[in-house]
């Protein structure tokens, strides 16, 4: 048994602190650190948005009796205090550097590639069970049953599948290749699956290194596959060199990783030589009423979230018209991948309806009938398809 001596004031404090001068120095250093950052937090203005993290920061809310009693005020305050901490971006980066120095191949659920030492960032996705996948594809099949027009279905694999060689060895991750294979086998009735794996697989420029989306080049080649299957036609001979729009794009995966060492991505457009082959108009429906819009939003190239350059970002519904095009009306059940694809579809179809399930509760069947849609394309990135909570609306 140990012998417990009652503590006495001034017990063993280590010989380092026997000198008063040295103790004052250490005390001052510590106080400078905690009082300094504490005071800076008070003095510095609060930020509403973090460019680096691409998220809204928590702002201070005055306490009320009710929020203090329930603890809600304290919970919010802790978030606020962290979000508005002085030099927050630098602290976040310091942590990312420290993780990498410790030999970690990931930070905040983002893998660093093993070939270029963390220039390519892969989001860590959780696996999907076979039952869950079957339920989800079941909603697409239901849509096929509900409609008389052809329904096409396609999933965009993540770059962690296409560029699997770049992932750290044995990195646990979802396998989009097998998800797509299973999804394809589950399609029934007049639902036709379009496999984009051949086009998007292998090393290449189909994906951004710092963002989860596909690039303009990836979307263009996918469009060729889609056109071939939907209309049987060929397209593409009118596209030539990509045009650089920005070489300062830091995407979503970069924001999550805090990986300051990564060089930025570039955003390109592909426009047919001599301009678009018809008169293209875009109607946005942010709140039910159409307002004129465009395929590209150059002002978005000046902000952090540059992917919104394409079609201006998420919207419930967007209708693109090109009366001179060869094919009829296409409805795309969209996620954000479709924004970058839309300019290519616009060259091919007289009308493209980009329809977002998240913001629409109208029955798709009704919408298709009312608008005389000729074909429907359900296009999702594999990860969005695995996690989206609105797919059931396909079958309504």
């Amino acid at each position, binding site marked *: 048994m140990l012998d417990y001596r009652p503590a006495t*004031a001034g017990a063993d404090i280590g010989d380092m602190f026997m000198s008063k001068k040295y103790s004052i120095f250490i005390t001052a250093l510590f106080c400078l650190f905690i009082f300094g950052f504490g005071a800076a*937090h008070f003095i510095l203005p609060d930020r509403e948005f973090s460019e680096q993290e691409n998220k809204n920061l928590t702002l201070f809310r005055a306490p009320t009796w009710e929020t203090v009693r329930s*603890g809600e005020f304290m919970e919010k305050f802790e978030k606020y*205090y962290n979000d508005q901490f002085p030099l927050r971006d630098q*602290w976040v980066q310091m942590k990312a550097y420290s993780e990498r120095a410790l030999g970690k191949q990931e930070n905040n659920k983002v893998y660093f590639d093993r070939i270029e030492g963390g220039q390519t960032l892969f989001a860590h996705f959780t696996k999907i069970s076979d039952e869950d996948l079957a339920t989800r594809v079941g909603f697409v099949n239901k849509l096929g049953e509900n409609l008389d027009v052809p329904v096409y279905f396609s999933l965009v694999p993540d770059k962690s599948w296409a560029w699997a060689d770049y992932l750290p060895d044995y990195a646990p991750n979802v396998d989009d290749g097998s998800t797509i294979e299973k999804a394809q086998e589950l399609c029934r009735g007049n639902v036709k699956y379009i496999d984009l794996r051949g086009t998007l697989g292998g090393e290449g420029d189909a994906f951004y290194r710092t963002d989860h989306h596909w690039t303009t080049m990836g979307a263009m080649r996918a469009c060729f596959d889609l056109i071939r299957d939907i209309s049987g036609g060929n397209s593409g001979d009118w596209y030539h060199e990509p045009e650089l729009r920005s070489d300062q794009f830091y995407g979503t995966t970069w924001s999550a990783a805090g990986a300051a060492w990564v060089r930025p991505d570039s955003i390109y457009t592909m426009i047919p030589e001599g301009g678009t082959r018809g008169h293209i108009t875009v109607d946005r429906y942010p709140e039910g009423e159409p307002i004129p819009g465009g395929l590209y939003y150059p002002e978005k190239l000046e902000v952090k979230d540059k992917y919104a350059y394409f079609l201006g970002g998420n919207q419930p519904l967007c209708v693109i018209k090109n009366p001179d095009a060869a094919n009829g009306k296409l409805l795309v059940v969209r996620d954000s991948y479709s924004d970058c694809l839309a300019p290519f579809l616009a060259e091919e179809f007289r009308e493209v309806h980009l329809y977002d399930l998240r913001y629409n509760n109208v029955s798709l069947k009704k919408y298709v009938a009312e608008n005389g849609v000729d074909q429907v394309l359900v296009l999702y990135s594999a990860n969005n398809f695995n996690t989206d909570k609105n797919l059931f609306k396909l079958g309504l």
Partner: protein
Amino acid sequence: MIFSSPYFLFLYFPAVLLLYYISPLKWRNLVLLVVNLIFYGWGEPVYVLIMFASIAIDYSHGRIVTRCKASGNDRGARMAVASSVVFNLLLLGFFKYYNFIAGSLAAVGAGFLPVIDSLPLPGGSIPFTLPIGISFYTFQTMSYTIDVYRGDARCQKNIITFGTFVTLFPQLIAGPIIKYKDLDDQLEHRDHTVEKFASGVQRFTIGACKKVLLANALGPLWDVYLATPGDRLTTLGAWLGIVAFSLQLYFDFSGYSDMAIGLGRMLGFEFLENFNYPYISKSASEFWRRWHISLGSWFREYLYFPLGGSRVKPPRMVFNLLVVWAATGIWHGASWNFLLWGLYWFVWIGLEKLWLGRVLEKTPAWVCHIYGVVIAVVGWAIFAVEDFSAMGPYLAAMFGFGAGALDGDFLYYLRNYLPILVIAIAAATPLGKTVWHKLPQRARQAAFPMLMLAGLALTTAYLVDGTYNPFLYFRF
């Protein structure tokens, strides 16, 4: 409120220091009492009422015991001690074990106790959650009345001073469990020297680094293996996971104790040590002299010795051990696995007391070290996997009945966590301390400020990013 958070380190604590040191000496306990209540009320404001009740009841019981003893009324004094123990146990029993008991009874078909989800209070009901730190402070206040009766502690007549003891924020929510008799002199009179403050700074920084840089770094590895389904667990993977948990818990808990001791020193207090390199133990008994020392000592002093301790016939000693270890187990959480974990230690410590201890004495030291660390780590599997349907497969995988020896996931996690594991294992031994003290004093004095700033900066970086910062003692 927890220490490992930016608002504690950069807002609450600087404010406390400022208030404390500008106050005259005689007001400092009152200042502490007020800031302690803010500290406690931050997480669960309504439960501050438990603090008030605890202070009032234990204070008055101490006074009654003293008065009875002074008038020669031993029976009255004993009644008062019993009443205080009953009150504290009821408090702990209701908040910590009521739903466990009700649920367990319902599970065997005797569900006459309703499970409580929320507490109806004037002004709206609140969720029925475990008040943070209740296992720690009920034990502290219980020891007070007992010690006053035994004559080991003086009765505290000033309710402010007593309240300061009950609510003292550095050790309020995760220990060390401090007995009143170890603190009473300091409550009345403590030195505030800059030497003590500086040594507190050192201790706090070490604790913060242990908690934030080591424990929080290893936690996600354990989470991966805890979440792995039993049929996919490999043998090496299961060991990797539980080793990560063993180190996480040690650095979390001992880091918290270090921070408490450091904060205490900065406010003039000197608390007892709570950990002493438990993973270098050569036996189960030694492990428990090195792990959570203040809890072991509490149970020894207020439960094991009163039952007769080891100075009884072997069967009675075994019974005494059984009671103490069952209590130690269930103290850690209202769940059957904690009881099982307590009994696991009962078996090892009982065996050591009866004959294994004598065998170990003749065994080479390195074998004893392996024995000591392996039984501790295996014990943590019982402790950490609360769900019995998962605990069996986890233990089976550890002992070779899993999905093979290793898989790709294991290789990935080993590759990624190897550096931090090596650092953590080295830091769990006295190696660093020994090397540090071999350095000349001047070298240490030159290196320390830089190490301290680096440690504080990294800690701040990990806290501000704040993706993983659990509080492990919400069950205690």
